[in-house]
Each structure stands twice: as structure tokens, then as C-alpha cells.
């Protein structure tokens, strides 16, 4: 955590902006903000000073990279560190409580800056997480300053692999599975330290072009768990695996319209426990999926009698599935 330094004067900041973007780009008027309590006050071209470092504020982020269904997130701003020129993401404090629906289940979620700050400290040296640090602003708000990750979403990368599912599964999926195993191990690292991710979704994984690794983003959610502390995280991991193994969601509606013979083989128990319109028992659609992998998928189906309680249990089964994928495809990765 950095400590506030002597206040920066407007002339110094103008000089820094001019040095970074050129004299013509210095805005005629802008606010210098040290208290971010009212994040709507933070506007384009303003400068937020945190821990003595001036950040030149640019656009706000939208869901898809950081956080709710293509809606602007006014508390998440892209900014330029005027000392280094590096692009950063500023996450300002926004306490939010809402009900998330997973299938028919409602779960109370909280947005917690403190939790995200704590996790940032924990994963500072872990390649599979976004990195950043946190600073208390002049009013004591915990602002997270995140490194900007350049690269596409992991699910978009995967959806582009192969000419069809057979080609994808035999030539690309072994590598994808290895990358997924890294992501599950990363979540295990959190769980082993008593932390949850809190919002595991496939659009919260970014492929970092620079480090050539997938990175989990957006871990400011926490939720009220009951008996299973990590159940929500594990369900998110299962949904992602179903997507990866299927090279996209296999939707019941699509099968009904386009592949009626496959649709007719499906039972309710074959569907995803989280999303009733998605098939989890993918072996019925793609018979070459090994039993060991399909068994993992079935843990996330309506027909499941037992559920994973820990990432370790899931990883045990995935290790067997990986060995079978090597046997099937002859590819190590």
C-alpha cells in the first residue's frame, strides 16, 4: 500500500500530461481528485491522485472485460499513470449487494473492495491472475489500481479453434485442457488460502498476449455461502469446462431445430444443473469424448448424485481425463 505524498499542483500535472500526450492534448479544464467517494464526479480527462501518483482518467469500462452485462461500469475507469505512461484500470469503491440467479437458485452477492485488495496482495506473484495494488484515497476509499491486460477473452480464443468440433477436440482441446487445468489450480490456490474468486465466468478469463497465460480477472465479489464455501466457484468452473469441451454451449434449442435425432436422445438429467438449456452430457453429442472427461462433466449435470466439494477432487478426475486425452489424440498439449 502506498502512502499519500505532497499534493500535486495543477501546473505539474499539466506538464506531465503534455509530456505524455503532447502540449495540444492537455485539456483546458479538468479536476484534480483525491477523494473518489462520488465516482460519478470522476469524468473523462480528470486526474485522480492516489498515493501521490497522478492518473489521467479516460473511458469507463464495460462488462465483458471487467464486471454486469454490457452495462457501463462507472466505478471502473481506464487511466494513464502520468509518472510512467502505463495504462491502468482504476476500480473505485462501489458497495453493491444484489441477488445473482444460478439456475433456480438465488444467492446474495456483495461487491467488496476489501476482498479484492486482499486477493490482489495474495496473487501478486501468480501468473494466472490479474495484478495490481491498492491505495486508500483521501477519504479512506480502497481504490484498486490494476495492470491493464492486453489480449482477448479466453472463450473467444477457444471458439475460433478448429474447423469443427471433431477437429477442435482432437487437435486443440488437449492444449485447452492444459490451460484450463492451470486455471483450476489457480482457483485452488485461492481456496487453499481461504479465499474465493466469487464470480467465476468464462468472460472473466483474459488471454494475456504478453505473458502467454490466461488470467482470472474481477474478484471483488463475495457471497454468503452456507454449507459449501466453494460451491459457487466450483459451479463456475464446471460451466466453463462444459463450454470448453463443447467448443461453445451446446443448446437444447439448436439441437431441437437442427439435429432432432440427437435431441431425441436427451433426458433432463443430461442438462446442465446451472443452465437448463445447455447440454452437460456432451458424450451424447460427441461420442469420442472419453468417459473420464464426460464423468467430470456429469458432476455438473442435473443427473448428478454427488458434487465436487473441493478443487482437489475435481483436479483428481481431470488428471485422469487429461491422460485419456493424450491416449486418444497422441498430443501432450
Amino acid at each position, binding site marked *: 500500500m502506498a502512502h499519500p505524498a505532497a499534493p500535486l499542483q495543477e501546473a505539474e500535472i499539466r506538464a506531465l500530461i503534455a509530456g505524455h500526450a503532447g502540449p495540444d492534448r492537455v485539456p483546458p479544464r479538468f479536476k484534480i481528485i483525491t477523494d473518489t467517494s462520488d465516482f460519478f464526479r470522476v469524468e473523462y480527462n480528470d486526474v485522480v491522485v492516489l498515493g501521490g501518483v497522478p492518473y489521467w482518467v479516460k473511458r469507463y469500462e464495460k462488462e465483458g472485460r471487467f464486471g454486469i452485462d454490457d452495462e457501463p461500469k462507472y466505478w471502473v475507469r481506464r487511466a494513464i499513470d502520468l509518472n510512467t505512461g502505463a495504462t491502468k484500470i482504476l476500480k473505485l469503491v462501489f458497495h453493491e449487494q444484489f441477488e445473482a440467479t444460478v439456475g433456480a*437458485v438465488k444467492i446474495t452477492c456483495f461487491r467488496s473492495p476489501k476482498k479484492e485488495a486482499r486477493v490482489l496482495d495474495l496473487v501478486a506473484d501468480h501468473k494466472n491472475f490479474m495484478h495490481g495494488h491498492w491505495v486508500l484515497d483521501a477519504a479512506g476509499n480502497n481504490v484498486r489500481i490494476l495492470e491493464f491486460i492486453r489480449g482477448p477473452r479466453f472463450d473467444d480464443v477457444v471458439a475460433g479453434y478448429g474447423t469443427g468440433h471433431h477437429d477442435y477436440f482432437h487437435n486443440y482441446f488437449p492444449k485447452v485442457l492444459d490451460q484450463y487445468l492451470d486455471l483450476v489450480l489457480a482457483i485452488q490456490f485461492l481456496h487453499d488460502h*481461504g479465499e474465493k474468486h466469487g464470480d467465476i465466468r468464462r468472460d472473466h478469463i483474459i488471454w494475456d498476449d504478453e505473458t502467454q497465460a490466461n488470467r482470472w480477472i474481477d474478484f471483488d465479489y463475495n457471497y*454468503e455461502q452456507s*454449507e459449501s464455501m466453494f460451491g459457487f466457484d466450483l*459451479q463456475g468452473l464446471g460451466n466453463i469446462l462444459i463450454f470448453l469441451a463443447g467448443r461453445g454451449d451446446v443448446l437444447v434449442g439448436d439441437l431441437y431445430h437442427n439435429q432432432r435425432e440427437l435431441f431425441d436422445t436427451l433426458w433432463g438429467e443430461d442438462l446442465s444443473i446451472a443452465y437448463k438449456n445447455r447440454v452437460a452430457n456432451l458424450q451424447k453429442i460427441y461420442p469420442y469424448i472419453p468417459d473420464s472427461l464426460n464423468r467430470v462433466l456429469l458432476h455438473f449435470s442435473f443427473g448428478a448424485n454427488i458434487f465436487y466439494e473441493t478443487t482437489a477432487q475435481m483436479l483428481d478426475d481431470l488428471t485422469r481425463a487429461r491422460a485419456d486425452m493424450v491416449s486418444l489424440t497422441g498430443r501432450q498439449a
Partner: protein
Amino acid sequence: MSEHDFGDLRRRDTERHLLAAVDESDNSRRTVMFLADFFSDSQNVFVTLLSIIPEPSGDFFPTEVERRQWLAEKEAAMRNTLAGYKEILIDAGFQDGRIETRLSIRPCTSIGDAILEEQEKLRCCIVVVGRRGISHSEEFVFGSTSSKILHHAKHCAVMVVE
């Protein structure tokens, strides 16, 4: 110590001591009513009404003051509920001295584990819990306290009240 001193743990190895794990839910009330109906005539049965309040993480509250306020309100409400449950048992014929209420506020990742720890500490011979009747998908996300107790209880019987 009196004949029925509740603090004498050695006695409990030979007595019929039920641990009823309850909260503010309807199924907990049904559990207490079942105990009242089923055991009130048994003069040698002792009941501990136990409630666990998992201490909430500071993550859920903007300030520590709000967290403490939430906890204080939750504790007051639960003490009130426990007193009400005790009344139900007394009205059914239980003697006051055969009922103990116990409220535990603790950091807790599993309520089921916390209940079983209390069972071990108190040496109760039966753990009684209600069943929420949660759906398959709810059990997936949230887990099930009654299932956990059924699968992990040792040296005691488990009674699940539907």
C-alpha cells in the same frame, strides 16, 4: 452437584442428551415441536438447543461498525428465538432444568462441522436437525447441513426432522 447437574459432562455419557441445532427457520420450529411432542414424557432426556451464528466477514459490510451492528441484531433475534423454543418445550412438559440454550458466534466455513464440534464437546448422544428441503441445484451451490451431519457424525445418532 445436583442429580441433574447439566454441567457434569461425565453424567452425559450415560444420559439421554439431545443436541437440537436450530436457527430462525420454519423447519427449526418444526424440529422443536417434534421434540416437544416426542420426548416431553421422557423424564431422563436432556435437550440442548444450539444455534450457530457464523461470524460474517468484514467483506460484506462497508464499515466495521455496520458489521458489529448486524451481529448484535442477529444475536438479539436469535436469543429471542431460542427463548421461544425453550417455552415450547416447557409448555409440552419438559422441566426447565432439562433444557439448555446455547448460542455460538464464531468464524465458520461449515455450520455442519460447527454443530458436530459442539456435539463432541457436549457428548450428546443424538443430534437433531431440521431439513430445509432444498432442491438439487441448491444443494450443489450451497451444500446441505443435514447431509453433512449425516455423513460426518461420529459416536452419536442423527435425527433429521422433515
